[in-house]
């Protein structure tokens, strides 16, 4: 009895300690973001600030293009997710429930493109866009992101649709349902957690993506958040308070989503991660 209790305590301590170590960089960053530079420099070792302040956050939000970056990321991520999920849903339903000549090969071909790292495509994309005069455009960014994400999104969605029993389809057909009706009233509602999952993954990808956005967008006012924060590194130089505040601001939407979707996300990640 006594031994068992001790063992549980030991494991609890190990778990808490490990969790703390893993989250430490984030905690430390949050801590510094609430400190004025005077405190950061004079008492660098404190985890809990002596005089916590929101000054850094105000500086970032009011005196830097951060709100604009936020708007840009919002637009790009939102539109891309809608576009990619819509196109992938259509294709996934087709691959899952219908059979047509070459559908197998087509599916594998689409997946093959996702196995090639997006970096390899970048030079060709940049050059082609440059010739078309479509550089520095959110639309180009959205389209490129969508094409990059469609194969994986498609794969996960197809798996979600595969879970719907075909008897439902047969019953619906007997009742005189058309393909589109089935799609809207049966397939999508039943797969909605899968659809929500890939929607979130797409938003996450676009929100965090850096190198393509860096390469394709040149105007300061069109930048997305990752590229924007990167530009802060030189501007804020020695002054880490505002820089870290910017980093936290950038992460807040994603962290909030994570707290809300929490469990669903972790489980979906295991499934999705196995595939992609």
């Amino acid at each position, binding site marked *: 009895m006594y031994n068992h209790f001790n063992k549980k305590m030991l494991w609890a301590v190990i*778990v808490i300690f490990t969790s703390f170590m893993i989250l430490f960089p984030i905690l430390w960053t949050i801590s510094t973001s609430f400190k004025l530079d005077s405190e950061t420099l004079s008492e660098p070792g404190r985890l809990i600030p002596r005089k916590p302040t929101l000054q850094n956050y105000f500086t970032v939000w009011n005196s830097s293009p951060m709100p604009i970056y936020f708007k840009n990321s919002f637009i790009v991520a939102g539109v891309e997710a809608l576009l990619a999920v819509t196109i992938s849903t259509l294709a996934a339903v087709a691959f899952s429930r219908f059979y047509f000549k070459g559908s197998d090969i087509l599916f594998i071909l689409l997946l093959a493109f996702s196995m090639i790292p997006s970096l390899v495509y970048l030079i060709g994309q940049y050059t082609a866009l440059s010739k078309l005069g479509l550089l520095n455009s959110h639309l180009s960014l959205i389209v490129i992101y969508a094409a990059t994400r469609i194969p994986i999104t498609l794969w996960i969605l197809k798996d979600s649709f595969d879970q719907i029993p075909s008897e439902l389809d047969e019953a619906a057909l007997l009742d005189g349902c058309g393909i589109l009706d089935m799609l809207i009233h049966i397939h999508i509602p039943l797969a909605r957690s899968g659809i929500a999952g890939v929607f979130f993954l797409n938003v996450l990808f676009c929100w965090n993506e850096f190198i393509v956005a860096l390469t394709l967008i040149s105007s300061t006012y069109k930048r997305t958040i990752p590229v924007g924060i990167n530009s802060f590194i030189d501007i804020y130089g020695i002054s880490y308070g505002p820089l870290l505040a910017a980093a936290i601001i950038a992460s807040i939407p994603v962290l909030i989503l994570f707290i809300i979707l929490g469990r669903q996300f972790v489980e979906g990640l295991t499934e999705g991660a196995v595939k992609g």
Partner: protein
Amino acid sequence: MFNIIKDKRAFWFTLPAIILVAGVLAYPAIYTIMMSTHNFSTIQLLVDTFTDTRVYSSLWKSVIFVGGTVILHLVLGLILALIANYSPIAKNIFPFIVVVPWVLSDVVTSIMWRWMVNPNVGILNIVLKQLGMSSQNWLSVPTTAFVILIIADTWKGVGLAFLFILSSLKKIPKALYDSAHVDGAGEFRILINITLPIITPTLLVLAIIFTIGTFNLINIIYILTGGGPFNATNVLALHMYKTAFFSLDFSKGASIAVVIFLVNIVFTLIYFRFLKRSQDIYR
């Protein structure tokens, strides 16, 4: 499979996806190959790239980075997964904790770690000073810059490793452990002779997945070291990017892209081989 309906019209459902992928991925890919061969007229540039010492030195740096990262990912992921498999508390808490770093963007991660290794007020040096050791500028020494890169990338990715390994640990039938206990085997013995051999195929698949991911990684390196103190951490992917977009030599960059592409093909083939082996084990 549920292909109960043979219907040509379904093809139209897939058309938007095909158009996008063909236009945005396939076309630039072909374009890249064309750029590296000057319109299919000569592969001299490609040959030059294969014999370029700078390319090889970048490749070598990629190898070091990938090697270190993959090993660390697997080791730490395994340790965490074993803890979670053994302790119910860990099993409930860990999945959410370890995934948090993965959700953050590469930029945020890099900034955090740059801050932590700051020579003057970074927490790492503060702690070292307390312990009586001297502080250093971690990012301006090649070896330590590499170490920091590997740690930062692992910190971000260990969550994935953990989730994968844990799910495969869960698949090991309890009966195996019970009979081992009955035979009087100690915990360590069980670990080495039962658990590890069974999850080895999964570990191999994971190793190749992380290899592919890390080999093509550019974000963290770009922001954390920008290629490192005097190109010390200039891995192949970064070298390609710099050649094309800093030196503005697009043809050369395209030929390096082709090299990267070929390496990836090799990795992918190995991946399928490992995948098949890991699935055979459940026959």
